[in-house]
Structure formats: structure tokens, C-alpha cells
């Protein structure tokens, strides 16, 4: 692994830490808006994990992670859409 790959891994992990910190902070708002904030952070974390998988696949040469990244992209989109829909419409 070269120095540029190490720097890329470090940047992605720092980004993961920042998104996680946004997810767990600010507990004093009205709860629907707070949940939306957390959904934004979780969406970013899913995109970041897709990026980490692809970087790992390129570094180690294991091409299986491309399939996992495709599946994760599907599931993350479904999760975000479901959260947004039910937070907009309520219990109806």
C-alpha cells in the first residue's frame, strides 16, 4: 500500500468519524427534525462505506467488493427514502 492510498484511507475514516459525530450530537430539538438530521448523517455514512469498499477492493485486489457496493447502494437508497416518506407523512 502506497502513501497516497494510506492518505485516502485516512481521509475516509476521518469523514466517517465526522458523520458519526453529527449523528449522535444535538439532542435538544423537536424530535422529527432531529431524526431528519440523523437520516442525513446516516445517508452520508452509507455513501462513505461504499467509497471505503471500493478503495479496499482496489488496494487488495478483491473484486467481490464491487458487488457488495452495488447492493449497499440499493439498500441505502431504500432506507433513506422510507425514512423520509414516513417522517413526512406521519403515521398515516
Amino acid at each position, binding site marked *: 500500500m502506497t502513501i497516497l492510498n494510506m*492518505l485516502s484511507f485516512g481521509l475516509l475514516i476521518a469523514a466517517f468519524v465526522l458523520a458519526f459525530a453529527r449523528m449522535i450530537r444535538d439532542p435538544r430539538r423537536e424530535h*422529527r427534525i432531529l431524526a*431528519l438530521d440523523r437520516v442525513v*448523517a446516516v445517508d452520508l455514512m452509507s455513501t462513505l462505506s*461504499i*467509497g471505503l469498499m*471500493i478503495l479496499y477492493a482496489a488496494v487488495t485486489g478483491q473484486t467481490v467488493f464491487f458487488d457488495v457496493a452495488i447492493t449497499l447502494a440499493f439498500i441505502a437508497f431504500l432506507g433513506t427514502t422510507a425514512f423520509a416518506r414516513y417522517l413526512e*407523512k406521519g403515521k*398515516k
Partner: protein
Amino acid sequence: MNLLSEILMFIGAFFMFVAALGVFRMPDIYMRLHANTKSATFGVLFLVSGAAWHFWEIAIVMRAIIIVIFIFATAPVAAHMLGRAAYFAKAPVWKGTLSDDMKDKYDPKTHELAGIQKNHKPTTAKSKRDKQDD
């Protein structure tokens, strides 16, 4: 591993870090959505093209193209749904925000544009279903 793919992947990782920094630091949920959607999808584009250049086989390149197309198609949809939910939940905007073009244009109960409902009644399947629910 050649240098071009490393540089491409580093650019992608940098843009994803910028997206996370924006999500962490921006004062307002709409600004956070903006940072999340644009910068993170741009970072995914560079990361995936760097990895595809590294392998350079037809199966891997097709998978990379599928990932990029899928993320570029779904990220705006997800961001639009989140922003709409935040707008109807009356999420507070940053104190320096100057204008809100959508103010008083939405019906607060049906979540549809008020001007459309005055002129003609929509008869799509969705509105019929909503009326049955009421």
C-alpha cells in the same frame, strides 16, 4: 498500482471528506443536505473511476459504471425527499437566510401546491387514495 488511479482515488476521498466536514459544520439541515448530496456523489465518481482504471477489465468497468449511474440517479431523489420532509416539519433555517420562495404556497394538510388545487381538481391515483383515507 499505477499513479493515475491512486491520484483519482485520493481526489475522491478528499471530496468525500469535504462532504463529511460540511455535514458536520453546516448550521442548517438544508445546507447539510446540499453538502451531503453533491460532494459525496462527486467523490464516489472519482473513487470508482480510479478503481476501474486500476483493474481495467470489462466486468469491473461495467460494475463501476452501474454504481456511478445508480448513485447519480438516486442521490437527488433521496435529497429531495429529505428536504421536503424537513420543510413540512418546519425545520428551522439559519439566521442569515434571506428568502423562502415556497412560503404559503403549500397546503399544510395535503402537502400539495395550493395554486394547483384551486384551478382544477387532480384526479390521479394518488389523490384518489388520499381522499379515501380521509
